[in-house]
């Protein structure tokens, strides 16, 4: 009887866990809580990309990809619990989609030797691979976003922001505070004044901030928001009749869910992006054939092609390409987290490769190295059309201001290294 029970238990454990040779990419998602609307879309895009690879190609290099989900509810403590509970299952890489969780996991992944990929979020100075050898944040980080916003505004103002007033309305959290330092430096360089307006999360009530904006009449408003803060801010901006074309959100404030509740009032609102949106890519024909039609789309595919879905898909694409590169470098398809880190550092996703993957002109080329874990950091601006309910790209990819950003990144990375007694790696 005891033997039968042991055999059954072993069989159950084997069925529940990934097969030994599978590539394990945990999905630390949030499908519940205040940020579920965004978390759902991102997690679906992430899952669907790997499902396509499994269904169409049999995985990567002949190895199936397992994507076990763990619910974080965008809660830092739960995120850390998810990390601890999944890392023992052969996890190759983490993408927690939360700056708060990222900050907590940086020392953990460094100690455990597991790469963490934080595209468009997390700690900006993790771009410095010498100090953060296990963290990657390409294709862009928050400081890139701040700089690209200012570059866009410079373009709109014949190259000068002298005397202009810019207000930053931000989520009062690690995420929302990230661009402040950069914007302050850019303000000094370009002569604009910056007003900082924190909003306490989740951000449903913002009347004080928008009354101040109405009173101060800034030329532009930038937003670092997430979840309900975005919807409330866009509605309040419409309420005070702030010109929407002068209101620009970071990429996490640029989803369909952010603008739809404000209806026609959101027309003309802009946001940054580092990836294309919509289903007008050959990739989606493959997705339809192998994933959607056979009924294998994550959650039934309610948000396929949306801005946040596309970003989740893009994150999965970069991870998959890093795995491919790692397999190539290691000469084996059964790679370890350390080998995946090497794969990330040798990553070179060209436009040709993106076209092969069915996503031409979707994102910028990504070339990483031992020293540069963040890529070029390019971004562009998209604008919402409330009538057609679509985003359209209104600028080309712009490169951030390295003259301002590099010293800031170096200073922050060195400070982190000093605080944590880290000897920066030597990158040749």
């Amino acid at each position: 009887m005891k033997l039968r029970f042991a055999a059954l238990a072993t069989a159950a454990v084997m069925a529940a866990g990934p097969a030994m040779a599978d590539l394990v990419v945990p999905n630390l998602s949030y499908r519940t809580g205040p940020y579920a609307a965004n978390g759902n879309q991102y997690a679906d895009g992430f899952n669907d990309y790997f499902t396509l690879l499994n269904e169409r190609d049999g995985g990567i290099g002949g190895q199936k990809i397992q994507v076990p989900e763990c619910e974080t509810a965008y809660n830092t403590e739960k995120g850390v619990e998810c990390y601890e509970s999944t890392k023992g299952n052969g996890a190759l890489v983490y993408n927690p989609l939360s700056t708060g969780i990222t900050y907590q996991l940086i020392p953990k992944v460094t100690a455990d030797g597991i790469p963490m990929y934080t595209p468009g979020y997390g700690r900006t100075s993790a771009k410095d691979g010498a100090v953060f050898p296990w963290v990657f944040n390409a294709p862009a980080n928050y400081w890139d976003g701040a700089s690209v916003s200012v570059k866009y505004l410079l373009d709109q103002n014949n190259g000068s922001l002298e005397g202009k007033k810019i207000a930053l309305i931000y989520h009062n959290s690690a995420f929302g505070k990230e661009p402040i330092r950069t914007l302050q430096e850019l303000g000094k360089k370009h002569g604009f004044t910056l007003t900082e307006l924190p909003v306490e999360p989740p951000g449903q009530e913002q009347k004080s901030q928008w009354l101040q904006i109405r009173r101060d009449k800034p030329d532009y408003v930038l937003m670092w928001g997430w979840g309900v803060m975005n919807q409330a801010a866009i509605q309040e901006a419409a309420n005070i009749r702030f010109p929407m074309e002068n209101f620009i959100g970071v990429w996490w404030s640029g989803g369909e869910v952010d603008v739809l509740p404000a209806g026609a009032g959101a027309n003309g609102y802009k946001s940054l992006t580092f990836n294309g949106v919509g289903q007008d890519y050959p990739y989606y024909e493959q997705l339809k054939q192998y994933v959607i039609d056979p009924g294998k789309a994550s959650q039934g595919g309610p948000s396929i092609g949306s801005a946040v879905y596309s970003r989740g898909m893009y994150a999965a694409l970069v991870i998959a390409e890093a795995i491919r590169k790692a397999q190539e470098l290691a000469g084996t398809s059964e790679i370890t987290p350390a080998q995946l880190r090497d794969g990330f550092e040798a990553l070179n996703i060209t436009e040709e490769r993106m076209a092969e993957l069915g996503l031409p002109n979707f994102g910028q080329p990504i070339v990483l190295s031992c020293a540069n874990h963040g890529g070029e950091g390019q971004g562009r601006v998209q604008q919402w059309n409330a009538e057609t309910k679509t985003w359209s790209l209104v600028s080309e990819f712009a490169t951030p201001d390295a003259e301002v950003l590099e010293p800031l990144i170096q200073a922050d990375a060195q400070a982190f290294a000093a605080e944590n007694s880290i000897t920066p790696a030597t990158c040749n």
Partner: protein
Amino acid sequence: MEQLLYVSEIVVNGLMTGVMYALVALGFVLIYKASGVFNYAQGVMALFAAMTLVGIQQGQVPFAHLINALTGMHVSNFGWNVPAVLAIALTAGVMVLLAIAIQKLVLQHLVGQEPIILFMATLGLAYFLEGLGDVMWGADVKTLDVGLPQGISDAAEALTARLTGYGFFIDRLDIWAAIIATALVAALVAFSQYTKQGRAMRAVADDHQAALSVGISLKFVWIMVWSIAGFVALVAGIMWGTKSGVQFSLSLIALKALPVLMLGGFTSIPGAIVGGLIIGVGEKLFEYFVGPMIGGATETWFAYVLALGFLVFRPQGLFGERIIERV
């Protein structure tokens, strides 16, 4: 002078925001008055009501995700749109059914229990409703449109500009919220003071067992009160949902109602309104005068500090009943 006008604008908007907080607080007061229970699930009830309203209005198939996952079908919509008034009436009906279910499945088994036991039951109810709402209607952000106007009131702006030289911002939705809240409070006060059912409600609040002994049907009173609280939750859900979409965060507005209740008193309907107004104005003025000196984003915590300050001097709140018990 300019400064004074700005402050006046902030005070007016603080009052309007306070009304929105009070709408949520009212639901708590009703249930507390009737059963002595602090209903932790009131915020989630507002979310659930608003989700149900959007679902009915847009002809969404409830439990569509679950049905699709279990059967492999692809159902999502019935293909019809229900007019706003009818959808509100149907949602109110759903809230009555929910009240009956709560009475039968939860409260009936807890008659005579300590208030803390009933409070814990509402805690569980909150988590259950959170999950039920998501499973029934999905976790995406839903646009709620029942025809309420939004955006700056041109009339108020023009009037204040003519009177003071500075046009005030007043949101039309807030004006509607103030009108609806006033009507709701008047109706609730009249109900609890002047009707047989209202007096029964107050008797039940004082002592379950004693109320039962004089022939008051506890079952009826609880269903009635939870139904009314469900309706108040629906009104709050409509107002907040219209403002920023119907989504999980709507349930968190309950946290804004707590300091309102501490200040106004847990048993007073007018107290909820006055408490809401004081919190609304207080937090806005504090943010304006002190916020810039200490980094801003003070509104969430300041409301609690203000409420705690009041508690020191009036533990029962401004309008709450002073409870004297024999030891």
